Each structure stands twice: as structure tokens, then as C-alpha cells.
């Protein structure tokens, strides 16, 4: 039987207003890839400050992804 903490811990990525839940504990770079984005095409910010993608995601983190590629 599963214990009280069986619910996997989640981190939220926010991209153009859309919230995407990912599993905590991985690197931000892996999470960006798993969410279907290229790490080369986004920047990540936490609490308004840019962070590098080697950061290990913690439960409850909210990471804003900023798209950087324009096609004009």
C-alpha cells in the first residue's frame, strides 16, 4: 500500500501562459526537453531572475519559460 507521500512531487513550467507540470528532481534542461521544447529556444526564470538549466527542480518550483526565437 502506498504511503501518504505517494503523489509524485511536481514542478510547474509556464510557457506563453500555459502551465505544464513536470516531475521534480530532474534538471531543468531535461524537464524542458520532456515538455517538448528546445533548451536552445527558451530562457528560464524563477522569481523574475534568469536561471541556468543545470538547476535541479524542487517540488513546488514555478519556472517561467521565455521563448526567444522570432521569425520575422
Amino acid at each position, binding site marked *: 500500500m502506498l504511503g501518504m507521500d505517494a503523489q509524485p512531487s511536481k514542478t510547474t513550467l509556464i510557457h506563453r501562459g500555459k502551465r505544464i507540470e513536470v516531475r521534480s528532481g530532474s534538471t531543468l534542461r531535461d524537464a524542458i526537453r520532456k515538455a517538448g521544447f*528546445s*533548451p*536552445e*529556444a527558451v*530562457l528560464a*526564470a524563477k522569481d523574475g*531572475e*534568469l*536561471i*541556468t*538549466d*543545470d538547476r535541479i527542480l524542487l517540488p513546488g518550483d514555478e519556472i517561467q519559460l*521565455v*521563448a*526567444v*526565437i*522570432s*521569425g*520575422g
Partner: protein
Amino acid sequence: MRCRTCGAPAAINMRQHKLALCRAHYVDWIPEQTERAIEHYRMFTRGEKLLVAVSGGKDSLALWDVLHRLGYGADGIYIDLGIDAGIGYSAKSRALCEQFASARGLQLQVVSVPGAYGSSIPDVAKQSVRGRRKPCSVCGLVKRHIMNRVCREQGYAALATGHNLDDEAAVLLHNAMTWSGGYLVRQAPVLAATRPGLARKVKPFCRIYERETAAYTLMQKIEYIYDECPYATGSSTLYYKELLNRMEEDRPGAKLQFYLAFLQAKDQGLFAPGASGESELHDCPQCGQPTSAPGKCAFCRLWENIPPVAPSPGLGPEKEPGDAGEETS
């Protein structure tokens, strides 16, 4: 990851340079790199007056900010294309450029396409063969014409654009896929003014990744238009940028190497003389701007059948009382 310079938590990691920096050191690193490119490609000198083409996007505003911080005399030009698309795209981007210029005491010239020529870009595109499917080609033609005219008439030494490494690499890949010799020969960080009436064009960000210009803009807290141009969806530029980013993920530095190796190969004679296939230029009999087309230039022909206002060759930039762009020198 830590800043290589001071050991503080890094705000950005540039894998192609094996370099991580904190905010404070990054916002100085970008102007240093820009200055290096300006000097390396002999783009312009501090005594020369520049015109920066600004769109309200991250690259052009970052470039204007960097040139200003480096002490270059640079005015801005914003071309209001009259694009609304339900989101007030042009109005928003124009306001951001005006706000940027006003906060720094910089001169911004605004040229309104609907105001000066009587039709917005989407409207004129719909009525022309060139823009019937998508207005991007018409948009490029109109912008190039206006920027060249303002630059030439007002004696600017060069027109600086915010093209970054991703822009340059995407165009290069696109042209290499079709072996478009003429375009490949002409692609360079500096496009010389090869004849009177043609403005010198420079791209000081040509070695800086798009991700880096975006990071600079965010770190400098420059407000820019985040929305993509409504007509850019599905553009070939986006497609090639995505392809290049897939390569970059596996091989950091792939985009930079692709572009720099191309420039080097070109310098070493990759293309035979005359490979550009460039026809001789002459002055358009209507507006006086250089053109390779027989007779009138493509810009003047574009407006010929568009009601209600015909183009006026001598039409100056839009002047607004109290606007930061009212004075130009």
C-alpha cells in the same frame, strides 16, 4: 552553475563558449562582444552617425541599448506597418519604441506606412502579386526602401539592424539549400554602399545568439513586444532556426561555426567573381533610389495601382509635435 568571473550564481550558460555568467557580468559582456564585432568587421567608428532600425522586438532594442551604452551616436527609425491583426501589433510595438527612446533621451524617427502612402502593409499586400499569399515580401521591400531613403537623405553613415547569429545562420542555411549564389555572395556583416544612393548596412549582433540577445533584454529590463508578428507563423526562417537549434543541442557551437566558416570560406574565394549574378543598378526614374529592375523600382511599381494615395518620393518621416523623433540631428 557559477559565474566564471565572480562565482555568484550564473544567470546564463553559453555552451558554445563554455561560459556561464551572472547578470552583472553578462550585461557588460554583450557590449564587449558587440564592440569586438564592430571593430573586427570595420562596421563604423565613434565619430559616425548611425541609424538603428527598431521594431519594438528584443534584438533591435537590445542593439540600440548596447550602441548607446558604448557611446555611439545612434538615432532610431521605427516603421509603422499598420498591422493590427486584432492585437494592435503595430500600435503596441511603436509605443514600446517611443517609450524606450524617451526614457534614454534618444531620437526616434517614426515613418507610418498608412500615413505616408495611404495603405497598411496587409492591405497593400492583398492587392499585389508579390504579397497575395503572405505580406512578408512586401513588408521587406517597403522597409528596405524607407530605411535606405531616410539613411541617405539624412546623411547617416550606416543603417544598423538587430540581425543576430540565428537570423544569419537561418538565412544562410535557406540559401545554401537552394544554392542561391546571388544571396550567398551578398550575405555579410557589412553590406557596403557600393554606389551613391545606397546606404551602408551593418549587423553588429551577427555573432551573438538570439538566446543571448533575449537574455540581455530581460536582464536590462527592456520592455519589448513578446508577441510574434501575426504573419510570421509558419515562416521558413522559423523552420530553419528550429533545425539549427536541433544541431546546436547535440553540438554546442554548431550555428556559430556554420556562419563563421561560411564568412571565412567566402573571404578565401569560395565564390568565383561574378557569382552574385548582380545586374547593374540604375536610379529609379520616379523615386531616385537604386534598382536593378528595368524602369521603375519594385517599390514604386508596388504602389502604382493602390488607391487612394500614390507614393511621394520626397515624403519625409512622419513628424509629431513632442515626439522624440521630431528632430533628427
